[in-house]
């Protein structure tokens, strides 16, 4: 009896030990449904960059080279000091580390990354632009950002020999902008009264000549931005190991916290409802009850952005777009409605490492803060918070954070594109 008791005890201890060890490693194997979810997030499933029919030079290498030069050129500004790269810094995954962008003045929102935006039908936090080229133009004339005017930028293309030659090779002969009585020093429609007055005095034909070149500046910058793509991260290596059924590789790549965090990410934490697909974004608009910036009224987000993009002469359906009407499906079938009040575009999670602060006004500094917010899901200040409380424990939130950190990877783009082009070239 005593002997059998000892055997039972030993058996129990061995079983308990096995259970304990099993729990402390991978909790349970991935189910088939989970493997499908994991595959859907894997960068290997990312299709080639979709065409941009609104930009006829989108995939022209010469346009990308000129766009590269334009992106890093501070002459594209009112004070000669602000290039796109001032806020979209390659070393910070094309963000700036600030709550809100700071150039000539203070921008209204947080600087989003550019990496992977070629896949998005909508640009800016509120989606008020529907192409990369149209997006690239707005900051150039925003007084708080580049603070210049389109006449000035068009003249830069006409006067810089390299820009001029490159431009004419792509788009044909530039109009003659040398007559200052027709084409003054500075002119642009919009908020600057002097520039606006000069713009209004111009003939509509001359305005059109300027607009055409201005638009093409955006299209060249967009051709460059299309090259900024995400690279495989440690997460993607783990998924490859899962898909290969390679248990040893899985254990070498991810620790327990990361595996558990990933499991929460695709299941109980419901992150993939919005952060889905290989870019971890559905590029859609959601109100998640993010508090407004201290001292500011809540941002109406997509409900304003949708109205702006529909009325924008630089949208896909406008005559500056190269797309046939039927290629503008996203704009033609755009959603309206009350759900969009306070909604912001879902950001990719592939650039988290160097992109703090987060959210549309940089309201959150750390991933822990964000996870705590989604765990609580407080009521929205404006509109309706789509999310609901998750009820996750502290340790589960830490596991989610551990997983999110595995998505870090530098852009897949070769280093030549990540620094200013050599001026000797």
């Amino acid at each position, binding site marked *: 009896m005593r002997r059998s008791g000892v055997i039972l005890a030993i058996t129990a201890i061995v*079983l*308990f030990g096995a259970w304990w060890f099993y729990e402390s490693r991978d909790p*349970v194997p991935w189910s088939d*449904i989970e493997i499908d979810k994991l595959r859907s997030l894997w960068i290997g499933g990312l299709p080639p960059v979709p065409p941009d029919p609104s930009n006829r030079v989108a995939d022209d290498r010469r346009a990308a080279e000129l766009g590269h030069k334009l992106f890093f050129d501070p002459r594209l500004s009112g004070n000669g000091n602000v290039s796109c790269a001032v806020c979209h810094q390659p070393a910070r995954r094309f963000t700036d580390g600030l709550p809100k962008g700071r150039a000539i003045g203070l921008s209204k929102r947080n600087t989003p990354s550019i990496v992977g935006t070629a896949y998005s039908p909508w640009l800016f936090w509120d989606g008020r632009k529907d192409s990369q080229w149209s997006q690239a133009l707005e900051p150039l004339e925003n007084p708080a950002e580049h603070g210049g005017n389109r006449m000035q930028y068009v003249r830069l293309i006409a006067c810089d020999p390299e820009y001029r030659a490159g431009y004419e090779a792509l788009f044909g002969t530039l109009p003659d902008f040398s007559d200052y009585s027709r084409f003054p020093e500075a002119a642009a429609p919009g908020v600057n009264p002097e520039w606006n007055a000069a713009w209004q005095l111009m003939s509509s034909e001359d305005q059109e000549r300027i607009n055409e070149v201005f638009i093409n500046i955006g299209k060249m910058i967009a051709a460059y931005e299309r090259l900024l793509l995400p690279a495989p991260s440690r997460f993607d290596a783990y998924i490859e190991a899962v898909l290969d059924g390679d248990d040893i590789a899985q254990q070498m790549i991810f620790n327990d916290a990361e595996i558990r965090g990933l499991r929460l990410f695709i299941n109980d934490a419901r992150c993939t*409802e*919005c952060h*889905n697909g290989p870019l971890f974004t559905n590029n859609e608009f959601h109100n998640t009850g993010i508090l407004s910036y201290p001292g500011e009224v809540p941002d109406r987000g997509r409900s304003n952005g949708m109205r702006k993009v529909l009325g924008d002469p630089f949208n896909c359906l406008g005559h500056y777009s190269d797309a046939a009407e039927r290629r503008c499906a996203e704009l033609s079938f755009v959603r309206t409605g009350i759900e969009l009040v306070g909604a912001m575009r879902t950001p990719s999670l592939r650039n988290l490492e160097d992109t703090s602060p987060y959210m549309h006004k940089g309201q959150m500094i750390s991933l822990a803060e964000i996870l705590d917010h989604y765990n609580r899901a407080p009521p929205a200040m404006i509109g309706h918070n789509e999310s609901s409380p998750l009820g996750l424990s502290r340790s589960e939130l830490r596991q989610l954070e551990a997983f999110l950190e595995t998505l870090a990877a530098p852009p897949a783009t070769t280093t030549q594109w990540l620094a200013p082009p050599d001026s000797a070239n």
Partner: protein
Amino acid sequence: MVNYLKKNKFHASTLWTTALFLLLPLSIIAAESGIEATQGKSWKSAAGKFRVSYSSELEPIIINQIHHWILHLETIDGEPVPDAEIIVTGGMPAHNHGLPTSPRSTQYLGNGDYQIEGMRFHMAGYWEITVTINTGGVSDMVLIPLEL
């Protein structure tokens, strides 16, 4: 658990409890089932006047990609219905939100077929597409369930 082992004399029942703990997670995994396919079916309208089926440009339908459907509309007796007004809405009941786009019927293709453009889904999960049909003074609606 460790304290429990130290303080109590070990019985066979404890072994069974341990075994149960070991088996429980496995039974939960086994209980997870596959996603039911909804394609290739037809749906009867709420008032029983029409039958609707659809085919999608994307097969299978994947999230985050705009595409079109061809919706086939026929009477309950199988006669194709031409020139009906078709209104397509939809959403995820569990999330209390609609489609991310505003799809429309853009063309009648003949034989009861209607081109529905601007379909896009932005989340995996259970969706409901509501097709409202207005024709010859008759109004009816069809609810199409869709698991993505």
